Structures are given as structure tokens and as C-alpha cells.
């Protein structure tokens, strides 16, 4: 397959090659060279494969055309196993897995599903599998899945069968922390940002949009809130015990005590031994604010992060503030931020969702994000300049970077 040049940033997009629709059981046809972007969309999963210089990206897919793909993740432990969190229109949610990177697909024999409730108030069912996290490097085959409503599931066989994490799903406070089932978010209220401490498989975090951040030190048997320092924008108490909405949380792989989150209201950082969130978004320009969904960290520099601010004024459009798209980067842990918009159109009105920004591990970090109007943007100079890598795709839910040659 020949490589196609990427389109350039700016108002005019170059026509993209027409993607060839493939049957879910047919082989995808891209090489396993350097790195690829796994793009989950409202209508299937796409793959953008980079050449060695990352100046050319080849689009392939969609696989699972017509299926809602919330998350596509490659197992970094074997760099072969690929899991998809899938839902099809009004059919039930499931997980598809491939052990040959898209060559063939198998549906999970036992997808994530809640156990039969003993209490009618808890009668709830998994509506979508939203988030996938590979387990600890020392636990081959272990994966975690976050669902909507807020369920946490674990697989020990590479995603084929899933069991509920009882310490969360059956927690006595689950109904309190997850709120009124009639007041769900339009796109669901998921468990997301499942993080495993690279030093200790028993030490985990996740977040929900109804309660906040949770931490476990016994591999999910018990969970405690970790919300101190966050500020609630509404309600009589600005610092309730729970009721926060972290949109995306991540920890630094080389400094696992350092957590960052892009909250519904604010950008925060926590040094875990201090157990207090610090609102580093206060250092963003006032006219831009610190509302957003996604945050990505430099894999080798714990003080460098990227965010894509959203408009949180009046009715909360959650599009680019003033319609002017820009990434903001910090090099000092959030004490200051730099606006980066070279290559972006003057105006755009899209949203970048929580799973839709990712970084690669190249010598000069590549940063990528996807938009709700189906564009994929990339920078291979850590955000200084941007190119549109693909356009005219469906609504983008997620982007993950997959490295094959490490």
C-alpha cells in the first residue's frame, strides 16, 4: 500500500483518500512499521499509520463500520493485542479483541455486565463500555474496563472474559456516589481514567463524573475518595466530599506520584503524598479559562503537559473559546501556559473529548488530537506547529498511540 501525503493545516483541506470499508472479519491492511494512531469514532475505528519521520500518515479503515467505538487500545506488553470498546446503535455493549492487530477479531466471550442486583434500586445494566486500561506490566493479560453507568471490570485473559470489581460495583455507597439514575449525562456517566501505578499493581485510581477521584491500594477491594482541593462550581458547599467531575486524569509514568486532571471546572495537579489537588488552571489566561476534557503528559518530562481548552461561559458551548482553536502547553507543571495555534484554522467550532488527545514516545514528542467534526490533528514538534492528518471522519471519541517497534 502506498503512502499518501497528509493534508496541511489551515482552512483548506486537501482531499483525503477515500477509506475502503472493510468487513469486521476481513484483514486490515496496514504495515506494522513505527507508530499508528487508533481512532475510535461514532461509526467505527480508523487507523493512521505513520512513516518513520511521521511526515506521512496513511489512513485505513473503518473497521466495524457503523459501530460506536469509544476506545481502541493496544496492549503495550505484547504490542499485538488490540481491544475495542464497542456498542452498536441500540444493541448491547461489548468488547472485541484481536491478537494479531486487526488481522482477525473475536468478541469477548463474557463482556462486562453487572451482576444480578439484590436491591431493586441498583437494578442497572451496562449501557456502554467506555474506557479500557491494560493492567500492570507484570500482569500479562490483565485489563480493566470502565463502563457507563459507573462500573469497573477486570479481565485476566486478555479481554475475553470480564468480571465486575466488587469492591466498587458492590460498594455500599455506590448508589450515593453515582447519583440518581434518572439524571444521567446524555452520553452516559462512566468510570474513566483507570490508572495503575507502574510501581505497584495493587495501587489504582479511577474517576467518575458524578463523584470524583477514587484510589485503591488493594487492587480494587476498597476505594477511597481523593478529592481534597477540588472546588465545586455549584451548590452550597464549594468543597463537598464528593460530587466533582474530573473529565480526564492521568499519572506520569516516570513520576507516578504526580497526577494531573482536566476537570469539568479546572485543571489540577496533585503530588500524591500531599493528597491535595492544586488548581494549576488558575494560571491560564482569564479570557480562555481552564475548562476542557482532555489532558496529555510528556512521557519523559513530568512538568510538561498539553490541554485543549473549551468554552465554559454562559451555556457552556464546550467548543474552542471564541471559536479560536488552540492547544496550551506547560513546561513547568502548570505554573505557566503557552498558547500554541500555528497551523490551526482561524476559527473552528469543534470539541475535543476526554479520550481524544494522545502523545507518542518519539525523541521529539508527537501530540495528536481528534475532534467531534472528524478531524485528526498532529504535531511532531511538541505542539509548536500543527497539521491536519485526516478529515471528514465521523465524530471522534478517542485517540491512542500504538508503538510497534519498541
Amino acid at each position, binding site marked *: 500500500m502506498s503512502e499518501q501525503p497528509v493534508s496541511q493545516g489551515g482552512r483548506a483541506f486537501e482531499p483525503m483518500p477515500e477509506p475502503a470499508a472493510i468487513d469486521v472479519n476481513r484483514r486490515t491492511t496496514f504495515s506494522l512499521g513505527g507508530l499508528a494512531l487508533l481512532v475510535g469514532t461514532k461509526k467505527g475505528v480508523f487507523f493512521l499509520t505513520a512513516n518513520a519521520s511521521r511526515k506521512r500518515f496513511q489512513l485505513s479503515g473503518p473497521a466495524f463500520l457503523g459501530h460506536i467505538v469509544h476506545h481502541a487500545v493496544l496492549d503495550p506488553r505484547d504490542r499485538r493485542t488490540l481491544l475495542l470498546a464497542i456498542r452498536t446503535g441500540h*444493541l448491547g455493549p461489548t468488547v472485541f479483541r484481536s491478537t494479531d492487530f486487526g488481522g482477525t477479531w473475536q468478541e469477548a466471550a463474557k463482556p462486562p455486565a453487572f451482576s444480578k442486583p439484590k436491591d431493586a434500586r441498583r437494578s442497572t445494566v451496562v449501557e456502554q463500555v467506555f474506557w479500557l486500561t491494560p493492567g500492570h506490566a507484570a500482569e500479562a493479560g490483565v485489563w480493566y474496563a470502565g463502563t457507563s453507568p459507573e462500573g469497573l471490570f477486570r479481565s485476566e485473559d486478555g479481554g475475553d472474559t470480564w468480571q465486575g470489581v466488587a469492591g466498587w460495583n458492590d460498594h455500599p455507597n455506590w448508589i450515593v456516589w453515582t447519583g440518581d439514575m434518572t439524571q444521567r449525562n446524555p452520553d452516559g456517566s462512566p468510570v474513566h481514567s483507570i490508572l495503575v501505578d507502574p510501581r505497584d499493581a495493587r495501587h489504582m485510581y479511577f474517576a467518575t463524573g458524578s463523584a470524583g477521584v477514587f484510589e485503591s491500594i488493594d487492587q480494587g477491594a476498597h476505594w477511597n475518595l481523593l478529592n481534597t482541593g477540588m472546588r465545586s462550581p455549584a451548590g452550597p458547599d464549594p468543597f463537598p466530599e464528593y460530587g466533582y467531575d474530573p473529565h480526564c486524569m492521568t499519572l506520569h509514568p516516570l513520576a507516578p506520584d504526580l497526577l494531573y486532571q482536566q476537570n469539568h471546572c479546572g485543571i489540577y495537579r496533585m503530588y500524591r503524598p500531599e493528597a491535595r489537588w492544586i488548581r494549576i488552571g488558575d494560571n491560564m489566561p482569564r479570557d480562555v479559562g481552564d475548562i476542557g476534557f482532555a489532558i496529555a503528559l510528556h512521557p519523559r518530562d513530568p512538568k510538561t503537559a498539553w490541554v485543549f481548552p473549551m468554552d465554559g461561559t454562559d451555556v457552556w458551548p464546550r467548543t474552542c473559546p471564541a471559536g479560536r482553536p488552540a492547544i496550551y502547553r506547560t513546561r513547568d507543571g502548570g505554573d505557566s501556559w503557552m498558547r500554541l495555534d500555528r497551523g490551526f484554522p482561524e476559527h473552528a467550532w469543534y470539541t475535543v473529548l476526554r479520550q481524544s488527545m494522545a502523545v507518542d514516545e518519539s525523541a521529539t514528542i508527537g501530540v495528536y488530537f481528534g475532534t467531534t467534526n472528524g478531524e485528526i490533528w498532529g504535531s511532531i514538534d511538541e505542539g509548536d506547529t500543527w497539521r491536519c492528518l485526516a478529515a471528514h471522519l465521523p465524530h471522534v471519541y478517542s485517540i491512542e498511540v500504538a508503538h510497534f517497534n519498541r
Partner: protein
Amino acid sequence: MQVGIPSVLQSYTSGASVVEANGNTVAALLMDLDARYPGIRFRMVNEADTLRPHVRVFVNRESISDLECAVSPDDEVMILQALSGG
């Protein structure tokens, strides 16, 4: 008995729009269907044993909501998947 399969579920039946399955009730029929085509039931029936929204089962052209509805070998069973949204 023969069971009509909607297009959205035909990836489980190798493209067949009508398949054979057995059972004395719709619930048993769906269990047998799942044994023959693993995974198909969970796409239609959630973990609370309730038909998912927009999935309909017709027995002899009548929509049924009770999965314990009795069926016999001569019945015509059809599964339909409604669509809405974009």
C-alpha cells in the same frame, strides 16, 4: 423453529437472515440461539434479562415483551431491531 434475524445481528449468523433454534419459551429460544451463535443474546438482552430498548421480538406477528412467552415449533419468530438517531 425458524427465527428471523435482523441485519444488525447477522454478523453472528454468518449472514443468515433466518436460522434454526429451539425452546419452549422465547427466553429459552434466545438461550439456544446464543449457544449456536455465541454472543448474540447479550446484544439483545441485558444482564437484568430484559430486552434492550429498540429490540423487538414478534411471535406469529405479535410483539411480545414477556420473555417467558411460550412458543411451539410451528410458531414464526422474528427479531427486529428498530433504529433511531443519526
